[in-house]
């Protein structure tokens, strides 16, 4: 109803009661010349309504305020480590660089290299792997070379980690020489860089790593690992002699990580040949300790501590060991999704703590971590956003 109509109506009936009124205008001038004075006191609601529209609260504006993005200055940087050797230098092809950050957050400065994922494979069948993983690799488990090929061809692996698990004296006690032979086959089968892992036996591992390092000379693999329980000097020597990198592994203690790096460096290993692994505890089994250790190490590195400014690695596969991941339990829902999501959650948390290289198992988890990694190295605003933030209300 417009004002004209209202007046007509008033003329007819002499009285008018309005219950709820909404008037939208910048300025209102109302002349009421034709109406008898008696009717005016009988419409108090209208008068009150009019008075309420005073200019100051008619429209609430968003004031202009000062704000600058809180960008920090960092004295230090994270070292860049190269994995693999280019064809131009006589290598097999694929080269991957990790690290190189100059800031903690993407909005401060985008990191130069995306995080990478390396697929875990084993030198013997692993019947103990949970079914949701076995179903992807069942056909190649008997042959680690085929296993590596499948990771690269089918799942687009950046890298492959070979665990020479059978070299464990308590398992098959495979000789370092045999492990090296397998290493040669693997290097020929795929062109991605390798992480070379032992079995976890502190006496045998340095020997296995040395033998494999020799046949992979110049390929800039990552030897996993040097730690305080074994002859880390031997591992460092192998890296220096045959041109590889070393994974420096400690247990969630930043000081221990610093100590091991210091020892490796004073033994002669260049700092930019070291990748740190401060241990990834699975989601639900102490991941908060890993969060603290990784965060502290990364911050210390960026503040200029050159003994801990190495890229970081995460054994994200540990997440698969959590019962919430592998156990078939109908109360916990479908394991086909639950298992990879447990690994994803663990990996993503580590990604946001600054981890640069992930050792993982499930192809789906790997795809998700890589997707987040890809987004992490986009420039802010680079990817156009067309979705409506409020669409979910109406969905």
């Amino acid at each position, binding site marked *: 109803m417009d004002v004209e109509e209202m007046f007509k109506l008033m003329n007819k009936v002499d009285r008018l009661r309005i219950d709820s009124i909404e008037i939208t205008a910048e300025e209102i001038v109302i002349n009421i010349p034709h109406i008898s004075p008696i009717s005016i006191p009988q419409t108090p609601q209208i008068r009150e309504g009019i008075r309420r529209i005073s200019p100051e609260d008619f429209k609430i504006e968003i004031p202009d305020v000062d704000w600058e993005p809180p960008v920090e200055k960092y004295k230090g940087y994270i070292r860049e480590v190269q994995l693999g050797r280019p064809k131009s230098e006589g290598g097999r092809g694929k080269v991957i660089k990790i690290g190189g950050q100059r800031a903690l957050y993407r909005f401060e400065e985008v990191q130069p290299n995306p995080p990478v994922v390396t697929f875990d494979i084993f030198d013997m069948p692993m019947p103990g792997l949970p079914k949701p993983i076995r179903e992807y690799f069942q056909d190649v488990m008997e042959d680690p070379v085929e296993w590596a090929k499948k990771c690269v061809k089918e799942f687009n692996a950046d890298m492959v980690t070979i665990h020479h698990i059978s070299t464990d004296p308590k398992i098959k006690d495979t000789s370092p020489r045999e492990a090296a032979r397998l290493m040669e086959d693997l290097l020929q089968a795929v062109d991605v860089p390798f992480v070379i892992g032992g079995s976890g036996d502190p006496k045998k591992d340095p020997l296995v790593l040395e033998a494999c390092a020799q046949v992979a000379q110049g390929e800039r693999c990552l030897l996993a690992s040097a730690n305080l329980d074994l002859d880390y000097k031997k591992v460092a020597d192998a890296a220096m002699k045959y041109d590889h990198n070393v994974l420096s592994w400690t247990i969630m203690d930043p000081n221990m990580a610093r100590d091991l790096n210091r020892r490796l460096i004073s033994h002669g290993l260049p700092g930019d040949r070291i990748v740190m692994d401060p241990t990834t505890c699975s989601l639900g089994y102490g991941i908060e300790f890993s969060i603290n250790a990784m965060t502290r190490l990364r911050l210390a590195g960026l503040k200029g501590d050159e003994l801990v400014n190495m890229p970081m690695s995460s054994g994200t596969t540990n997440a698969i060991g959590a019962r919430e991941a592998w156990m078939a339990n109908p109360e916990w829902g479908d394991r086909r999704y639950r298992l990879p999501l447990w690994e994803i*959650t663990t990996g993503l948390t580590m990604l946001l703590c600054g981890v640069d290289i992930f050792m993982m198992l499930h192809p789906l988890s790997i795809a998700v971590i890589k997707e987040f990694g890809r987004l992490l190295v986009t420039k802010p605003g680079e990817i156009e956003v067309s979705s409506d933030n409020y669409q979910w209300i109406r969905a």
Partner: protein
Amino acid sequence: MGKKISAMDIYKLLPKINCKKCGESSCMAFATKLQERKASLDQCPILQSPKFEKNRRKLEELLSPPVKEVWFGYRDRKVVLGGEEVMYRYELTFFNPTAIGIDISDTLSEEEIRRRAKFIEDFVFERTGEKLKLDFIALRNASNDPEKFLKALNIIQESTKVPVALCSLNVESIERALDVVKSKPMIYPVTEQNFSEMMKMLISKKKKDKKEFAVVLSSSNIKTLKGMVKASLDHGIEDIILEPHTTPENIMDTLDRFVMIRRSAIERGDKLLGYPILGLPINTYFYVLGGNNPVRQFVKELDKAAAIMEASAACAMLNRYADGIIIHGTEVWELMPILTLRQAIYTDPRKPQTVEPGLYPIGNPDENSPVIMTTNFSLTFYTVTGDFEKDGVTCWLLVMDTEGKAVDVAVAGGQYCGENARKLIEETKIGEKVNHRIIILPGLAAPVRGDIEEKTGWTCVVGTRDSSQVGEFLRKNWNRILEEWRAKEGAGN
């Protein structure tokens, strides 16, 4: 880092009479507790007197965290957001765990609304002696019809007592819902587009009708958001939550905004940005459901892919200061990792995650019962004892002091070792309680079996990888293990 107050700063403003009425031994002890946020000012009766009003005000100001604590819900069932003081949990601790809300659309049938609301109210995932739960219902006005919105709200209020967020772009829907809502709701959203209209309505509701609510200000531009905060405060609206847009195309932009807001508040002392942050993983859910499936190689079903990506976005936000999130998926496998991650991040690092080492009888063990050795990491301990109880296992459980580390970590770190086993056996005198010398080790402790046998002289048997398998393992093997050991001992003698 922002300003850091000392216990002395606090002490100076306290009555300093050591009356102990707060429960502490002295005013200085109380000051220390206040500084650690382990006590509240209400505990001091003297401070409540008019004489101390000025000091109390000063203390309130001094002790207010750089991120304001905002609550909504019922007085006896609150959702508390914010209250944070640090950027990294190791610096102190994080305080209020991220509140998890699940949406309910007002276009669902009455029965469906009731069922979903009950599900949200009743959902429990129990881990390590703690019941992990969902926190609130995000009622969304999908119909855009105020009538339907009110109806749905009434169904929820009648059948549950879960705190509610009222989510609508229709100002009339919110206005009318505020008249019938029985709790202090979260109101979503005040946007750049509806700012004036929505704020005017809210101001009037607050001033005239004395309605209480927490309001969500929403913009993808932090400067604009800050301006919106200023305008709200100027009009007396102080319970504010910030929602800097969740963009499913690139979640990293969203996470950056979360960090910028939090760092501005904590490290730069920007009071206007010192409010809780709300994230919307639900945007990711619907984005993927709409066909943008980045994992189609592995998961074809769009709703499953949506749930996986939504949970991923949620977990990323938990790692980046989200004080509240709204999600859509309710599959238990989606909620489990989110709830578990929240539990981990908000665990107080100042408290050790350990139980008392020693000997724990499980069931009614006797001299023939097995001896099993685990660690004093509380997660491990509760998992093991929970499983044993469920499966009716009877045994002597030795709990080793591994400095609160899980089995695999303690094996690698050298705490789960022969020397500690020897001490434990001596201290608990377990040898006097059983007539055998066999210890069953967790599967993950296999590498240190030799070391333990050597240092203790006991025979070690490597058991199962998981404590849930122990019951079956013992039923199948314990008698045989015991007989074999006795035969060997007999032969040896």
